[in-house]
């Protein structure tokens, strides 16, 4: 079995050439993936804007790499993320900088997957925090509204939320206002992510002992200061592994935007299968896609495990 797998994926595989060379060989056709690599990364983004996609992906990648180091965690990192996201949104579309425009509806491929995942996290994180605080609030109206939001969203499939966003949002907007389908998908992901993150934050908030807030108020800290300086740092730290797991879940689930007609990475893989020059290599395309998603998600889960041990070691000190 292992030998067969090796033969298919490596020994008898075709790495260069065209479809005819692939059909002649008995192994996998990696030449197909190599040929389509540009399409997987850029999708339908206009040729002149490709360099901007590369630059944006590099910047986002660099900031993600920086975020992995706990020494950088703080307000400046937060500001850097907000600045980068605003800049990337304008820069990629291009019209604000007098560049060749690449409107939102041309965005596709890897850049969409990365963009949706990052923006979903950036928006769902604060919203989830508010919902978690609301769920634990003593004010009945606030609590009930938060519970309704969280439980409703967690009770239905993500696909139905995406359908809601793609079909219902246009219905609820005033006449003449239209949202791109990518933006609607993002609204769906923000709603989805906020409910799942809220439950994790709630667990974190509940793990902070009562004495902490009592101690803070005996130091005459205001409620806001207590929350910001005493409770939240401890609460968020307690649930870091669970947060990373939710990030993984959201990243995997970005592939669902395909269903409402956004061409993400998986969408370009699927679209490449119908290229008449390269028919019949679906296994290779899906295996390549699986390897990419696996590398990212498994990397994140390794990082989560590393954090978990590092934090528990610190806790014991």
């Amino acid at each position, binding site marked *: 079995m292992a030998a067969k797998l090796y033969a298919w994926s490596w020994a008898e595989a075709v790495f260069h050439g065209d479809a005819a060379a692939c059909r002649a060989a008995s192994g996998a056709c990696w030449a197909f993936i190599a040929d389509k690599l540009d399409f997987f990364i850029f999708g339908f983004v206009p040729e002149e804007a490709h360099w901007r996609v590369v630059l944006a992906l590099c910047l986002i990648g660099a900031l993600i790499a920086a975020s992995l180091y706990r020494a950088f965690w703080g307000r400046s990192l937060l500001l850097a993320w907000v600045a980068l996201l605003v800049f990337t949104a304008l820069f990629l579309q291009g019209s604000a900088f007098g560049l060749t425009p690449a409107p939102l509806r041309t965005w596709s491929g890897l850049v969409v997957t990365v963009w949706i995942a990052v923006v979903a996290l950036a928006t769902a994180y604060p919203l989830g925090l508010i919902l978690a*605080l609301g769920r*634990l*609030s*003593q*004010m*009945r*109206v*606030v609590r009930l*509204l938060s519970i309704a939001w969280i439980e*409703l969203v967690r*009770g*239905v*499939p*993500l*696909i*139905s939320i995406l*359908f809601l966003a793609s*079909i*219902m949002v*246009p*219905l*609820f*907007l*005033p*006449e003449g206002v239209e949202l791109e389908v990518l933006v609607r998908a993002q609204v769906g992901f923000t709603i989805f992510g906020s409910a799942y993150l809220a439950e994790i934050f709630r667990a974190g*908030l509940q793990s*902070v002992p*009562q004495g*902490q*807030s*009592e101690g*803070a*108020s005996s130091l*005459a*800290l*205001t*409620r806001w200061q207590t*929350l910001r300086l005493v*409770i939240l740092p401890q609460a968020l730290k307690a649930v870091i592994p669970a947060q990373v797991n939710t990030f*993984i879940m959201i990243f*995997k*689930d970005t*592939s*669902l935007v*395909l*269903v409402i007609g956004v061409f993400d990475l*998986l969408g370009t*893989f*699927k679209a490449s299968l119908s290229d008449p020059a390269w028919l019949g290599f*679906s*296994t290779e395309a*899906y*295996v390549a*896609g*699986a390897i990419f*998603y*696996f590398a990212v*998600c*498994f990397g994140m*889960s390794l990082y989560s495990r590393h954090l978990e041990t590092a934090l528990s070691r610190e806790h014991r000190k």
Partner: protein
Amino acid sequence: MTPVAPARSRSLADLWNDIGVRKMVFQAALLACVIAVAVLLWWNASGNIARRGLEVGFAFLHRTANFAIGESMIPYSPADTYARALLAGLSNTVVIAFFGCLLTTVFGVLFGVLRLSPNPSLSRLVGVYVEIGRNVPLLLQLFFWYSLCTRLSGPRQAISPLPGVFLSNRGLRLPSFVANDGLFFAVLGLVVAGIAWLALQWWARRVQERTGRRPHILAWGLTVLALAPLAGLQLAASPIAIDVPELRGFNFVGGQELSPEFAALLFGLVFYTTAFVTEIVRGGIQSVPKGQWEAARALGLPARRIMRLVILPQAMRTIIPPLASQYINLTKNSSLAVAIGFPDLINISNTVINQTGQALEVIFIFMGCYLTLNLTISALMNRLNAAFAMKGH
């Protein structure tokens, strides 16, 4: 939030300092905001609906659907109503979710135990599967399995892993029972045998409580279980018929057909969710203190009975709550059927929305269906959890 003592600031009016008043004002303002947003949205929506000439209300449910559904667990034809079409979709979702949960549990427990096997290559193999299953998006997995299913060879070169089971690009063909008198009496016999088995266990427990010795009832039980359905068959005029599929011409005849979509969806869901359940079972088994193993071994129990009688029942307490959320996830994930064309609830809802334009009502219906399904699962699992909970504590 944990309660925090109110901060005192004397510069504001006394009323504003009263934490109770402040909370009331805040809540009233929030409620007003929510209502205002809802009214605004409703206003926009009704304006849009009027402009597009759409209809409002559930009257469309009684109209004829006029579209065919590939496969349905309940009888359905295009002459039926939209309500019937949605029900057919719901039945498909329920069947997929039921078999998905069943198979996931079986394989999850099996792999969870194997993950802890002393054989390192076996446990590592399961570990590799778990990581691949968990870290690749389900949608991609479904596309992969579906493309494999449709690329299988035709019925004439079908793969037959078991006699009577055929895997081809037409899907999966299984032998099926033909309902006649024989089947009825056999099932009746099985029910009788089940009751007899429960009675035997009850009697054995009574004897064990009184004498401390449990009588050997397994042989008796198996005999009853085997003989009662046979006796039922003997009673019936016609013996039971099993319909084994066979190749005739270009396709199979007889047996139960599962479409490639159904097979790919079920397999994909089970493959994905089992990876999570395996980890849950492993964690549950590891959460049982080591002393339990040692004490059971000291009593001379063999390893398999330690697992079955001592470890698993205790592990169940840790396993059931996360298992329940995996069942719910599986049910929700079955909605990905829409991507490979299996007619589940969402897929049919989508068609209904496209035909009638009544998005609001249909989305309301299917969200209600999923919420009900999930609440049912969590209620059932809560009861199961209560059954396994520590008693007398």
